[in-house]
């Protein structure tokens, strides 16, 4: 029987296999940031172990960093201590680091692909659950905890139990105005926050094939929000074109050898998945979340659900609690929900195409007076490119704030936060209670919906706007 993409990548990385033990898998790329690494480096130091392959390891500063005044010392002492610990650790263990102010600094999941370090068929790990982003290249990429970070630093391997595989096939053409973010929000609403648990999801079908690499990254990024360990898309011409010429992509004969290998990775026709979900692309529309987990999403045209719609008691309580936290009444049209803040950024939607999509909507328009809008590029490189394209001028002319690169309001570890009770439309990936600041209320949206919402002051899609 044939093999799936995930199984092929897995099998190509087995270092040691024995009955009754997890497979020991080799790790091709280990990405590191300041939050989940200090205790891992501490562990190495305590046991006198070196980093086995600093040349397969890359660190960047992203979670804590401020998005203004980056030439000044970080004001918050705790954030500063974490960032400084990363700098000391990288220097001591020989790990390359892109620090604040460097042209390659940025969110770890934006930096890897943009440097061409993330390639098809690789195993990629990082102490961050959104490592699933890199699966867009046909890499097996997943988040790990801090003791696994220490394990990979020390051994460049991880003991892992096989995952199950699930095909998510999105067939057909996406209607105009429907983006990768809407697709993944719809997938999660359909299968639930636990629906992907234990699985590697492989996104397939003509709608996925038709997406750019950046769109595929947005989708794979949020696989974790469906509970999955990883998400993948088979590499194809779109993948190769994206990689060609990037700093760490192979060249010459090595490029040809690589492409030949990458082309062999697609799931075999006679392979079978442990589970399958099929979604009709034509049925999709812009999606927004109304609740406090990413599975609580609906088409923008819908109304806030009622606890009475719940299938069971557990769900009824969950809806009730979400409505209370979100300060929403059942039956309210989603389009009537007013927001205070709009955040465009994160490893889900902080790449250049995302900024272009938001700028496109804002061109010749103004952010509503009642709204604060933050645009935070996913990396310093994305920021530079946006400036070269003049996107920054569009944002600033519309009244939005143009910031430096980092995770920012995606998780509010830096000063960019919601105040208690404040409501946001956010292009990030988590609408958990307090995620964007204690008491903050988050609606997850696409960059285009975020920008339209900023203009209207209520949840809106670009089709709600009159001509600029």
């Amino acid at each position, binding site marked *: 029987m044939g093999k799936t993409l995930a199984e092929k990548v897995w099998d190509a990385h087995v*270092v*040691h296999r024995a009955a009754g*033990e*997890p497979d*020991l898998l*080799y790790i*091709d*790329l280990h990405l590191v940031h300041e939050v*989940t690494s*200090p*205790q891992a480096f*501490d*562990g190495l130091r305590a*046991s006198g172990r070196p980093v*086995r392959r*600093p*040349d*397969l*390891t890359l660190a960047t500063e992203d*979670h*804590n960093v401020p998005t203004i005044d980056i030439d000044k010392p970080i004001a918050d002492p*705790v954030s500063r*201590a974490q960032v400084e*610990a990363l700098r000391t650790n990288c220097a001591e263990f020989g790990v*390359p680091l892109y620090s604040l102010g460097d042209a390659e600094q940025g969110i770890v999941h934006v930096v890897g692909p943009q440097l061409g*370090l993330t390639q098809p068929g*690789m195993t990629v790990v990082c102490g*961050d*659950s959104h490592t699933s982003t890199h699966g867009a290249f046909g890499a097996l990429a997943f*988040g*790990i*905890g*801090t*003791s*696994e970070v*220490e*394990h990979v630093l*020390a*051994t460049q*391997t991880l*003991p892992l139990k096989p995952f199950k595989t699930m095909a998510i096939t999105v067939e057909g053409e996406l209607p105009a105005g429907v983006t990768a973010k809407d697709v993944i929000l719809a997938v999660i609403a359909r299968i639930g*926050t*636990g629906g992907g648990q*234990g699985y590697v999801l492989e996104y397939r079908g003509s709608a996925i094939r038709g997406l750019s690499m950046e769109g595929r990254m947005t989708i794979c990024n949020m696989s974790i929000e469906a*509970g999955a*360990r990883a998400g993948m898309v088979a590499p194809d011409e779109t993948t190769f074109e994206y990689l060609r010429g990037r*700093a*760490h992509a*192979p060249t010459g004969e090595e490029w040809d*050898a*690589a492409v030949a290998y990458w082309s062999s990775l697609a799931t075999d026709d006679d392979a079978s998945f442990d589970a399958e979900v099929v979604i009709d692309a034509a049925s999709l529309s812009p999606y927004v979340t109304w609740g406090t*987990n990413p599975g609580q999403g609906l088409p923008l045209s819908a109304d806030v659900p009622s606890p009475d719609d719940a299938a069971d008691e*557990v769900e009824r309580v*969950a809806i009730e609690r979400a409505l209370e936290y979100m300060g929403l009444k059942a039956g309210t049209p989603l389009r009537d929900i007013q927001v205070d803040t709009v955040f465009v950024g994160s490893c889900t939607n902080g790449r250049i195409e995302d900024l272009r999509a938001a700028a496109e909507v804002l061109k010749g328009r103004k952010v509503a007076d009642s709204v604060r809008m933050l645009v935070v590029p996913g990396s310093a490189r994305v920021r530079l490119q946006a400036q070269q394209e003049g996107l920054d001028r569009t944002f600033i002319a519309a009244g939005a704030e143009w910031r430096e690169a980092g995770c920012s309001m995606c998780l509010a570890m830096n000063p960019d936060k919601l105040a208690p009770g404040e409501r946001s439309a956010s292009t990030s990936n*988590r609408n*958990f*209670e*307090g*995620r964007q600041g*204690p008491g903050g209320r988050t609606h997850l949206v696409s960059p285009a919906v975020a920008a339209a919402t900023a203009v209207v002051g209520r949840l809106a899609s670009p089709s709600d706007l009159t001509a600029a």
Partner: protein
Amino acid sequence: MEKFTSHTGIAAPLRRSNVDTDQIIPAEYLKRITRHGFEDGLFAAWRKDPQFVLNQPEFADATILVAGPDFGTGSSREHAVWALQDYGFAVVLSSRFADIFRGNSGKGGLLAAQVDQSVIEQLWLAIEANPATQVTVDLVERQVRAEGITAPFEVDDYVRWRLLEGLDDIGITLQHADEISAFEHRRPAFAPVTIGT
């Protein structure tokens, strides 16, 4: 790591589903660079409510947490495991755990034992009726026991072995150092490196 064979203690009922790791320990506590002392961050937002279960004196010494389904979803932060342990928990019982949380637990020495939701409901009723109820989680027998309740729990065989033996992961892997080197020699020439190009 200390060996874990069986544990008996007071159990706290957490009647919530989908307890994500942001609730277990909010992001602000992740800024620390030490490995211990995270007990103050455990369920920090919920603990502000005097009615919250961990604020009830009868559960002050709880060492077993009995939670609803989908415990530990969300961010991969291992601090969630450390916070539970630093607070004094040795075991979490739930009818379903998020994968990463379950993995992190096994590595850190916290037992994440999966039981049927009906067992969770029975335990909730028993503990709420009598908070002093002694609950035993027996890793050797893979069994949860309390007065009138005996139920099996699920735990990964490998995680169970490690917990029983108190073994550290890196040490186990480095027994295969030769195989790792051999694999490195087989890697394709086009595989990228982060230093140089």
